[in-house]
């Protein structure tokens, strides 16, 4: 397409091939035979303005992307009922139509074919008037949208029930509703040479470090990919430590979580077509925080946090410790327990390590089988798996009863920290293999290796374990404990916010 030339703004523009011609027939020819050739979703509605000086016009729109009633009621009807004065020439026609006739709320003027192409895909109507080298763009977006519902991946008992949908505009409005301040800023970018997906960077102008915003923008701009179908693409393309299984960018389906993260001084990224917002930087502590922690009483919230940390340890370490103990260190198990484990394993044909890996695999198969199925079938699978398989396997002495307990405990504890659940499987497996080869020595070996990995990671310049390794009270306030709101005086130090003060009532306490 030779006429799709990009010219710099501000230069005096000679009339080029990309410019809209005053002749309606020429315009239609270019559009139908070149730009939108073979595209049958583009509708061309020809009409004439009324007497005494009828003028030929065409309304162009992409089918199913617009509200048809809207176009016919507020664009077509007024245009056909009124007439354009005879003395008007060229651009004046478009301006007259927009100012005096069109009843739509948004109207823009464009002068190039390439812009028509871009705009039509956003779901607008484009009016071309014979004799006028300017096209009028009227807003009429209206494609199928999902309602704002509670996100299935992050349901809460106490807290707002709104979740993001696939529409970027709606999503931004959901966040803006919570941060009604002129300091709340949104920067738009387009990513994807084919998809031209709109990506929004959300931050608070008076809080967030500008370097962080610039860095996020720089990374997103550097993306050169054909299409972005979900925020997961962006997440993987811009995150730090891409080879590490630990996430360095957070994701959430909840506008309240995005608002909270932005208030702390983080940056959020919303991607059109994805209900998952990204937040960055993302640290390990955030995996153990839930939005409900901040809505419930701080003592219960702290307790639940503790439960999450313990559960993560349980889900990653239990099978490894079990294998190490029964295979290398039976002397460390209390006597009564060791006897009962020994008795339970008496007729089991497989060694402990085979049992652990096989049962772990069975659990993962059951989980994977249930995840993407409709809920009633998914439940049937878990019942068959848990009760029938588990019980029958023990009765048939294929596996020992303690192993079922270990696998069950491991599986259930994994769901307590959902954001790390997929990764917990990998940690668990590597620790089990190490424990099977080297006993508790191997287990500790593996834990140290993971600790080294975690301490070497960072997210947007912030060390991944920040606040877990400090003794500064204001940095510890939101880690293992969640201190009461009146003590959350400052924003996290590691985010280097412009304004660290959160609670204004506590003057003079910025020194911490």
């Amino acid at each position: 397409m030779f006429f799709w030339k990009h010219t710099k703004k501000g230069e005096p523009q000679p009339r080029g091939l990309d410019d809209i011609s005053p002749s309606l027939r020429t315009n239609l020819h270019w559009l139908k035979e070149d730009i939108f050739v073979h595209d049958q979703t583009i509708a061309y509605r020809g009409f004439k303005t009324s007497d005494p000086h009828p003028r030929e016009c065409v309304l162009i729109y992409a089918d199913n992307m617009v509200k048809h009633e809207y176009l016919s009621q507020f664009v077509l009807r007024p245009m056909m009922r009124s007439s354009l004065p005879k003395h008007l020439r060229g651009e004046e026609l478009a301006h007259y139509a927009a100012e005096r006739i069109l009843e739509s709320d948004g109207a823009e003027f464009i002068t190039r074919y390439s812009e028509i192409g871009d705009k039509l895909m956003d779901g607008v109507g484009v009016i071309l008037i014979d004799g006028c080298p300017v096209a009028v763009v009227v807003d009429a977006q209206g494609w199928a949208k999902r309602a704002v519902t509670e996100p299935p991946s992050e349901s809460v008992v106490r807290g707002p029930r709104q979740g993001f949908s696939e529409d970027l505009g709606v999503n931004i409005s959901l966040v803006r509703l919570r941060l009604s301040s002129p300091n709340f800023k949104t920067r738009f970018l387009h990513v994807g040479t084919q998809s031209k997906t709109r990506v929004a960077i959300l931050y608070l102008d008076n809080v967030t470090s500008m370097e962080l915003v610039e860095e996020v923008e720089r990374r997103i701009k550097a993306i050169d990919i054909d299409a972005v179908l979900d925020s997961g693409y962006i997440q993987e393309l811009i995150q730090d430590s891409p080879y590490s299984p630990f996430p360095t960018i957070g994701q959430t389906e909840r506008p309240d979580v995005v608002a909270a993260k932005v208030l702390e001084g983080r940056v959020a990224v919303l991607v059109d077509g994805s209900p998952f917002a990204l937040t960055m930087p993302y640290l390990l502590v955030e995996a153990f925080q839930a939005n409900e922690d901040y809505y419930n009483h701080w003592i219960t919230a702290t307790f639940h946090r503790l439960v999450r940390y313990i559960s993560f340890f349980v889900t990653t370490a239990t099978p490894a410790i079990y294998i190490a103990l029964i295979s290398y260190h039976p002397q460390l198990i209390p006597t009564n327990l060791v006897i009962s484990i020994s008795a339970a394993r008496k007729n089991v044909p497989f060694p402990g390590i085979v049992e652990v890996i096989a049962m772990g695999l069975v659990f993962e198969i059951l989980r994977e089988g249930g995840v993407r199925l409709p809920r009633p079938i998914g439940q049937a699978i878990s019942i068959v798996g848990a009760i029938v398989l588990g019980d029958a396997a023990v009765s048939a002495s294929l596996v020992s009863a303690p192993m079922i307990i270990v696998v069950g405990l491991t599986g259930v504890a994994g769901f307590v920290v959902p954001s790390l659940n997929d990764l917990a499987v990998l940690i668990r497996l590597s620790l089990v293999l190490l424990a099977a080869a080297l006993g508790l020595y191997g287990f500790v070996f593996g834990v140290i290796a993971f600790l080294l990995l975690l301490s070497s990671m960072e997210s947007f310049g912030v060390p991944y374990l920040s606040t877990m390794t400090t003794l500064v009270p204001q940095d510890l306030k939101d880690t293992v404990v969640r201190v009461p709101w009146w003590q959350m005086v400052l924003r996290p130090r590691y985010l280097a916010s412009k304004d660290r003060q959160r609670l204004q009532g506590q003057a003079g306490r910025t020194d911490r």
Partner: protein
Amino acid sequence: MKRVNLVRLTILTLICVLLAGCWDYIEIETLEFVFGLGVDRVTPEYIVILEMVKTSGGGQHAQVEPKVLSTSSGSVSSGGAALSNVAGLRAFWPHAYVFLMSEQVAREGILDAVEYIARSRQVRGTVWVFVTKDCTVEEVFKSKPPVANSVSEHLNAISLMQENISGFIPLQVWELNQDLTKEGISPVLPTIRLVHERGELVPVVEGTAVLKGDRMVGWLDGHESDILCLLKGVFERGFFVINTEVGEHGRFPITYEIVGNQVDIKPLVKDGRPAAAIKLTMQFGVEEVGRAPINFRDMQQTDSVEAQLATHFKDRIRELLHKVQVEFNADVLGIGQLFRRKQPEAWRHFGSDWDVYFPDLPVELEVRCQVVLTGLSSAPLRVRD
């Protein structure tokens, strides 16, 4: 360059795993858990007796039952190893609770038997040690404790309860090792005997075997052991029934409970000869008065009771001291050890001849008894005539 590093890292990891690992992988069900170990002696051989638990069933019907195996062998360890052959499973020692020796082994010297237990990597230092009295070790292991699954668990439970039942001083292997190697103290071991209980033989822990060096020299019965407990300061709770004179009404058996007990043994040098001063303070609660017309609110009566208690205990301590000094010449209280610690100069002088000095060692005895708990909030029960 990256690939080379990765290869190196993989090789290093494999070396760590394959060479440096403790490759003693075992399957837990192939182990036979030893609960108790016993040694008897039929000269010239040792009889090694193991109490193991047999686990069977598997699945949801797991069962545990004890079984006793014995073999005769030239040494304790070879006997233990030989029993693995009999059992068909590897004997696993770390969960053992008790170690039993027969009287004959104790009289001939326990070192041979205990040395293996102390040396073994597998047997824990927390194993309880006992000497059997008037029965063989095998008979003890084959007796039927009324509640516990196995004899070893029964003995373990009793040893842990010592503070509530008294009558013996429980000892673990590591403590025995310390006592054996220290100067100026003679180890004492609790004894086990069998009693008939509804047609079954039941093992009872009562009394003490007194050792001199590593050889047993005599027995103390349960009552003497109580007094020994008091002097060693390991008496936590226990009852004494003492015939107490109540005014002009005569003597009545009253049960006292010891609620507190402080003992202080001081080594002294008098006229160039070693001596010792024992100061014992005991607090009593009155547990059972029965028909005795006694009123503890009356200070005179209480004072009289306290004086009687002091006399009673003084007499019994004298008896015990006489027995260990003159009959056994075994320093069970560790007075020599105290000398060594507190008066090293004197010990350097007497230490080598402690066996000569000990039987005639003059002991000053001071016993104070206090009745602190009367167990009554009002006047005692009286039957009206």
